[in-house]
């Protein structure tokens, strides 16, 4: 069967599975809709969190990014996993003990302020929307490349599926669909990685093959070979760093702290039955994530070696089929500058002019074809990419609908709304959010991709310190927390806007503050947040006794009661 036929089969089977799961697990109350009735076992929740977390960016883009960045790719690997340690140790158990549905609930109650709550709601909606637009775009790319449908139609099919199970099933439906999606995506990621590892190094475990010897009998280590190839063509050695150490430090920190502050991740820890389960489910989540995240750098190195081996100095008329396929999507561009009919792929240190531009996003999707794996594997990868994009999109849509129906309507605007009314409002909000996200997916504003990366910095500079201090420092009061958030977020946003939108030509290390790029500036924003919030808090009145009691209560080990009912 052809690649396209296999892709239809794989995608069709996986979609049928998701819909089946959604029907089986639909929600009947607001508690089930928002937090799955707080009855999800930790391992299941861990798996769902992993699928929620690993987006189209993790599945499709990350290995490609790493294969072009070499060692510096570690900022993503560590940044997007290390945050879970903070989450498990510093946030999840206490937020579960607090026991209400959302991050704005916590911020609003802990800082006894409607302003703080509304600011938190707006931040949560903003972060979630930028994210979800990126996911829908990923869905569109997979559909158009592998199934030859128009991007618009592809996005609409994706919207339909997400609408069906997010709106019908709420958190309960999403959780169990995400479990299915995790299985699909991890299988789809590992199968080609194992195949390629076997082919190239003879080792079945990619994580080991990555550091192993090549299978061609030369006895050379894969990474040494890759370093040699890279330098020959004028690129930097693969295992060397290129960014300044301080920048790597700050970017990694911003991604870690941002991960721990993202609302769609935090909300998952409200769905487990007990405080201890919140801790262990963060552990399970990271374990399931680590399976993909330790495979990704191996895939990156394999793909890079294959790419350099295959395309460089090949005659253009002799290129393999995958090259032509991707060329028609515009994601590979060849420009025969010296007119010799050969492809010269060269790095910055080479005398010869580079003639090839390759979009980083295609490395994972093209990898099975480059390594000449069977067609069904290619179809499987397409289904996996869709699973990653859809599961994240659904989780984000739920945060948006919860923010609107619960945080805005129920807690602020229409406080006497009935449970049934709230559930209907939540479903309508989810439906509208799907449509807006779909629109962004079809017609993306140019800044979406960039904004997604910066959402982490903004979360690190605002939410993270407010939540941490809310738990670990009883003396932190509302004035301190709000002023800290305002300083942190305006400094970070100002720096990013200046370098990315006002003066992009100045966006080079020489002009950066302490050599920190806009991607890493959120860490400095967080430091400023602490520096402002602590003194301001000490200079103003301490929080009232009932808030101090609340803090004592979330710290104490007595079990959290059953999940909160809606009459809070």
């Amino acid at each position, binding site marked *: 069967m052809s690649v396209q036929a296999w892709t239809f089969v794989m995608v069709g089977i996986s979609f049928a599975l998701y819909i089946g799961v959604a029907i089986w697990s639909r929600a009947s109350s607001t508690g089930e809709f928002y937090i799955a009735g707080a009855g999800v076992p930790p391992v299941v929740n861990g798996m769902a969190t992993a699928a929620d977390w690993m987006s189209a960016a993790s599945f499709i883009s990350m290995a490609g990014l790493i294969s072009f960045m070499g060692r510096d790719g570690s900022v993503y690997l560590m940044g997007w996993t290390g945050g879970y340690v903070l989450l498990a140790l510093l946030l999840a158990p206490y937020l579960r003990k607090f026991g209400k549905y959302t991050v704005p609930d916590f911020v609003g109650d802990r800082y006894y302020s409607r302003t703080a709550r509304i600011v938190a709601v707006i931040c949560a909606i903003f972060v979630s929307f930028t994210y979800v637009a990126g996911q829908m775009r990923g869905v569109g790319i997979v559909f158009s490349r592998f199934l030859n449908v128009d991007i618009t139609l592809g996005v609409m099919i994706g919207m339909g599926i997400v609408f069906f199970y997010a709106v019908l099933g709420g958190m309960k439906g999403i959780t169990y669909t995400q479990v299915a999606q995790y299985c699909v995506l991890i299988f789809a990621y590992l199968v080609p990685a194992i195949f390629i590892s076997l082919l190239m190094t003879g080792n079945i475990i990619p994580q080991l093959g*990555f550091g192993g010897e090549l299978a061609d009998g030369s006895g050379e280590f894969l990474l040494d070979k890759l370093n040699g190839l890279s330098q020959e063509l004028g690129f930097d050695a693969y295992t060397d760093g290129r960014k300044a150490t301080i920048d790597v430090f700050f970017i990694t920190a911003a991604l870690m702290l941002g991960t721990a502050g993202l609302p769609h991740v935090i909300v998952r820890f409200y769905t487990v039955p007990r405080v201890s389960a919140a801790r262990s489910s963060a552990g399970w989540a990271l374990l399931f994530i680590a399976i993909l995240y330790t495979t990704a750098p191996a895939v990156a190195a394999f793909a890079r070696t294959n790419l350099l081996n295959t395309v460089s100095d090949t005659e253009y008329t002799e290129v393999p089929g995958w090259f032509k396929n991707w060329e028609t999507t515009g994601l590979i561009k060849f420009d025969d500058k010296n007119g010799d009919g050969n492809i010269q792929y060269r790095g910055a240190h080479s005398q010869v002019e580079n003639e090839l531009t390759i979009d980083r996003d295609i490395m994972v999707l093209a990898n099975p074809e480059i390594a000449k794996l069977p067609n069904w594997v290619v179809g499987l990868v397409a289904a996996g990419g869709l699973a990653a994009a859809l599961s994240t999109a659904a989780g984000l849509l739920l945060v948006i609908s919860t923010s609107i129906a619960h945080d805005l309507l129920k807690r602020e605007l229409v406080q006497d709304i009935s449970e049934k009314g709230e559930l209907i409002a939540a479903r309508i909000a989810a439906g509208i959010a799907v449509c807006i996200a779909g629109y962004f997916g079809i017609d993306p504003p140019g800044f979406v991709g960039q904004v997604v990366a910066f959402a982490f910095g903004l979360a690190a500079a605002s939410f993270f310190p407010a939540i941490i201090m809310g738990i670990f420092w009883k003396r932190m009061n509302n004035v301190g927390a709000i002023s800290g958030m305002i300083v942190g977020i305006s400094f970070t946003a100002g720096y990013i806007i200046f370098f990315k939108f006002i003066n992009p030509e100045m966006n080079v290390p020489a002009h950066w503050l302490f050599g920190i790029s806009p991607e890493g500036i959120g860490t400095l924003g967080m430091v400023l947040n602490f520096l402002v919030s602590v003194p301001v808090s000490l200079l103003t009145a301490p929080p009232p006794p009932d808030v101090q009691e609340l803090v004592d209560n979330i710290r104490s080990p007595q079990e959290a009661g059953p999940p909160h009912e809606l009459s809070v």
Partner: protein
Amino acid sequence: MTGNDKNRAYWKKNLQYLGILLAVWFIVSYGCAILFVDFLDKIRIGGFGLGFWFAQQGSIYVFVALIFIYVCLMNRLDKRHDTSNREEEE
């Protein structure tokens, strides 16, 4: 001990665990994988330089281990706290 004292002792112990585990977290990710990466790269394990291995593999394994260690420590602490509470009630 009163319930309050016990809660305070529990919290202190928790902070102690957090301090140690987060120190390990920091040393592995920011130390081994970022600040001292070039130095550690001089040590080779198979095809990996040690620094590169920490940056792209090792740190992630350590993160997973840290969370599960914390889970075990806290489960034990919870249990001890629980039994001492029950003894008091009797």
